């Protein structure tokens, strides 16, 4: 009955389960921390903390969907962060308007090139992605160290620092509302356009009330999010913070990748390759190009995450992105991406990243030591994958029956 209602509303039941899980975790942590968790300030910080892992998790979904893995993302993030820092602080004239933009562009190009190179080694030479990117993990981390012999480079350009958020790096109240309203309008427009087009071909579409409920639910989520971000004011002032820039970057990345996955050939082929590589080949899918593209995109996103982390830290440091690959993969997996390939969603991965970051944030508020936090997050990872396996088995049987 409940699954039937979700189907009528056109909501993926697994995403609904993730949202419900997140809700339970939030309420639990709120109770345990005596009301310190669900405050505008903490939620605002939580969103910003999720950005770096979330940006990479979006790309990791596509990598894992093709039955591959990328262990090098943390190292690429670190290396790109260091490249940007050195160029920005030590190579080009500091303080010029173009410096932060130019160095960011170079950093993103470097990340993309690293990713594309790994994709080519995998797709053209047939070296397993696990091995290629394990080597990449060592190589890119090593390069980051070699660039400055391990020295930390600071401070970053003030404009570039905005990318990391912080008090200046938010877009303020009115702009946040504008972003939210544009989101609601775009969502409504897209759903109604799809509906009209289906009706034009004479398909049975979902009832109008179901469409309305779905749009209202999603609009509620979007505007609720904006309201929370806008109710956080800078300490000891009443300046509204609004959505912080790293969160805006994450939202942009997630929307772009959803668009790519759902409405472009590229995305369709990524899923086809993961579902049945031989079938994809026989259908004329250019698998080599697609795989190189997926790794290049992952490298770009790792570079972007590295830039955000570097801006947040206000320094190019060697430890940037260390072990991030594990959080990123865990986020994708908690978000329902199957390591067997062929299934997973970008939105799921963002929710996965948010779940992990919520647990970590809440446990910090509770004062738990980091060793214990790791134990708990590890257990959550196993429970999430187990629950997903059970769900798949049951829904698989339901579809056969």
């Amino acid at each position, binding site marked *: 009955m409940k699954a039937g209602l979700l189907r009528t509303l056109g909501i993926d039941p697994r995403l609904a389960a993730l949202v419900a899980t997140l809700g339970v975790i939030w309420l639990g942590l709120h109770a345990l921390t005596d009301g310190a968790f669900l405050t505008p300030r903490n939620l605002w910080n939580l969103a910003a903390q999720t950005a770096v892992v979330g940006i990479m998790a979006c790309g990791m979904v596509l990598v894992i969907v093709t039955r591959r893995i990328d262990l090098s993302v943390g190292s690429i993030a670190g290396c790109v962060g260091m490249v940007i820092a050195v160029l920005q602080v030590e190579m080009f004239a500091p303080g010029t308007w173009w410096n932060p933009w130019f160095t960011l562009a170079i950093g993103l190009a470097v990340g993309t090139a690293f990713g594309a190179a790994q994709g080519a080694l995998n797709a053209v030479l047939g070296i397993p992605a696990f091995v290629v990117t394990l080597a990449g993990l060592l190589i890119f981390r090593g390069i980051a160290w070699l660039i400055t012999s391990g020295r930390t480079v600071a401070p970053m350009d003030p404009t570039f620092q905005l990318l990391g958020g912080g008090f200046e790096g938010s877009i303020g109240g009115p702009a946040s509302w504008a972003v939210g309203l544009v989101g609601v309008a775009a969502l409504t427009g897209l759903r109604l356009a799809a509906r009209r087009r289906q009706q034009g071909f004479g398909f049975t579409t979902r009832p109008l009330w179901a469409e309305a409920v779905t749009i209202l639910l999603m609009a509620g989520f979007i505007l609720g999010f904006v309201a929370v971000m806008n109710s956080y004011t800078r300490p000891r002032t009443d300046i509204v913070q609004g959505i912080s820039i790293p969160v805006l970057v994450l939202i942009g990345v997630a929307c772009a990748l959803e668009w790519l996955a*759902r409405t472009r*050939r590229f995305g369709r082929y990524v*899923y086809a390759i993961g*579902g049945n590589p031989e079938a994809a080949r026989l259908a*004329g899918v250019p698998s080599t190009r697609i795989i190189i593209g997926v790794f290049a995109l992952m490298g770009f996103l790792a570079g972007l995450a590295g830039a955000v982390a570097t801006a947040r830290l206000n320094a190019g440091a060697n430890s940037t992105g260390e072990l991030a690959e594990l959080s990123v993969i865990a986020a994708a997996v908690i978000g329902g991406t199957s390591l067997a390939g062929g299934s997973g969603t970008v939105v799921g991965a963002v929710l996965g990243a948010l779940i992990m970051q919520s647990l970590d944030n809440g446990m910090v508020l509770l004062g738990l030591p980091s060793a214990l936090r790791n134990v708990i997050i590890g257990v959550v990872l196993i429970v999430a994958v187990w629950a997903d396996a059970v769900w798949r088995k049951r829904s698989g049987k339901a*579809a056969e029956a």
Partner: protein
Amino acid sequence: MNAALVTMRGIHKAFGGVAALDGAELDLNAGEVLGLLGHNGAGKSTLVKVLCGAYPAEAGEIRLDGAPVEIRNPRDARRLGIETIHQTLALADNLDAVANIFLGREIVKWGGALDIAAMEHAGRQVLARLNPHFTNYHVPVGSLSGGQRQVVAIARAIQFQARVLIMDEPTAALGPAETAMVGQLIRRLQSEGMGLIIVSHDLHDVFALCGRLTVMKNGRPVGHVRTEDVTQDEVLGMIIAGRMP
């Protein structure tokens, strides 16, 4: 007489030094159903895989309407109007029926966005023509029954105005009702002027459907016969002994 629809001559293909095809040949006319027979390992599947671009040939000539063509990959074959229903069906189990039908040949709107509604519209029509009861448009094909999966694979092959249709063991996984459906479909496509190649073990099916037979052994042709000129026993003799009756 006009040039045959497909002519393959002197096709060679080796895997790791072992010759799978050694001078294989085949002729197919428009509006004809050709049975391709042979033991396991005789090279019949390999020969049709050369024709559909799955394995490029190392030597030999392929002509379409008398003109030499080069088929290096599945895209080339599809562009020439050669469609294939593979024995494994070659479906992406995680995608739905419509996505599978259009895989590699998606309909796109201006700017390159997938035209999902247009594909669903066309996909529904071709599926309904094959099986009016087919309604599982939105579930991954991995959760469909064997017969339904076969329908999806056939729909993919006939959606794009094929001139040549290759069916590798088309009825091996099917029940009696579905086998009859495939038989009817083969006759209809034949009457529309398509050339069909059926790879099969099942002599009974082949005799019911095919006008001509090509028998292979050890990667070479044993001979080409008209079905009405031979008995099943004689064909069995060709398959086993590798000699013309």
